[in-house]
């Protein structure tokens, strides 16, 4: 179980690194915005990233 979790963690880290440029762009966009637009963009970015990482196995499964 621990091994499986560790494996997922490594995969998630790799996938996040793959998304580095995209995340940089989104962070800059979020910091440039204010008010409701900033809230929505920030929240959407975090939620999408979490969903993206949680569905690693589903998307890469053979």
């Amino acid at each position, binding site marked *: 179980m621990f091994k499986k979790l560790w494996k997922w963690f490594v995969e998630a880290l790799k996938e996040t690194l793959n998304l580095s440029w995209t995340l940089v762009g989104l962070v800059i966009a979020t910091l*440039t915005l*204010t008010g409701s637009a900033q809230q929505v963009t920030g929240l959407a970015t975090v939620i999408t990233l979490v969903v993206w990482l949680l569905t690693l196995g589903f998307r890469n499964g053979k």
Partner: protein
Amino acid sequence: MLRICLALFLLIPTPAFADHVPTQTPYDISIACDADGDTTKGDITVTWQESDGFEDSPPERYAIAFSNDNFVETNYAVANSTGWETALSYKSYVFTASYRETIFGTTADTFYAKVRADNDTDASYSEWTGIVSVDCDYGSIPTTTTTTTTTTVPPKPEPEPEPYVEPEPLPPPPEEIIVDVKVEGVDKTYTQADVNDGTIERDQERIDNEDMFGCFMTNAQIDRGDCVIIIEEEEVFEDDIIEEEIIIVEEKVIVEEEVKEDVENIFPEDDDDIFDILPEEIFEEEIIVFEDEILEFEELPIEFEVIEFDMEDIAPTVVVEIPIQDEIIEEVIDEEVEEDVEEVLDEPIQEDVEEEPELTEEEIAEEIEQIQEIVEIPKSSTELEFTEEEFEEAVEEYVEELETEEVIEVLEEVNDVGVQNLSQVTEETQEIIQAVVEEAIEDIEELTEEQIEVVAEVLQVEAEDVEIIAESVKDDEVIAEAVEEYVERAVENAEVENYTLADVVTEISYESFIENPIETFVDFNNLGDITVANIGDDMTQDQKEKAQEVVVPVILTRIATMAAFVFRRGNV
């Protein structure tokens, strides 16, 4: 290579070609008989859904067309009094049995309906929805049959046929229907609400102006200059006048009755000279006297039809057919647009490019002196100097005592020299100016439009944005801090061109993100108040422009990421 091209093709964001129209056609139309479950009234309800609100000219009202022969011969239209209110909400209109009895002569038939969204102000009208229909048998007389039997067996007591129940006397037709007018071949029925809000007058103005100037616009639009009016010098030829007179004599027979009625009103009854004239002479006089009035009717492209009504028809109806050619209107609009474009292009471009002349050092020094003369630096009443905290308190107290006019005077002087040139004033003066800016934002409700423009110039934003900033300061810590530190940061960034409040906001957002990244991204404050329609309403125009500049880098980074991904896959 092919895969890379394919990936780039898929990754480059293409704009969504949404069907963006000025006024959207209503959605989801339906029609039902006795929709409320009450079968005693026989109402027919037409229901439709309002648009999603993404349109330039939202409906000011809805026109509901109604027919009992699928709009082949009968075509009645009514307009409701309320326009667009809530996105995707449902609206309905009820055609009562009495109304159907009045216009169709029956309450039991197949009835058809369609709806259109109208914006009279912008002269924008949607397409008609599809036609919906319903069979409604309210008020139909049930058929009865009689049978005779010859058997000797005593007949069983047959159930008595249901007694025919006279339908309830129809209520009077709705009072709201005032006038039926045919526009573009469609009957348009005005309601009482239309009379109250002046819709009829505006429509009449449009008809008149269409006739006079070729523009289907209200007087207000004409006065505003929306219609290009070409005044042509008219040459009067005697032959033309003679022709008109001949036509009038021919038309005389048609309007004979009306003319006679008017004669009675205009000629005084006790005018013996007129009544002594022979009947033939009176006839000629009538033609001469009413020549002008008849000419007016001649000039209008309107056919008047006099419709006879029974006494039972309580609501009088006047049908006016107004032939309007869509193509001509479109051509006129096209010409107007072209002329406008030419005018814009003719304007000297240099005017927009011109920049304010930069102040010389001497001028800046003079302005700085003026600022320091106006701004009084609080001094300690004791021999000891202020500590930093004491000075801040003293400044706060001093600024609070300032009158609004004094605050604006200080800001005007700051504008004269420019915020970024304040590095030459003392730090104390800078702090006071900073406090004055904060004070002006806090008291935004007390400021006049001119004073707001002065504040906007200091912050280097649009005047409309000052109000947004004042609202945001109350619940957004980042913007509140940005306003507090604006003057200080503007002075520090004197070298930066076009340094505005939006830049300060971005800087403080970045600093806040470095301190606490999670809080910046996961902020649930007032999340429930956010709707799709109001996202971004609390951003200043300047901030929006700066945010747009970020979209391009985001797209580029996305492409770069996916390209790298494709390369890696290709090398495996």
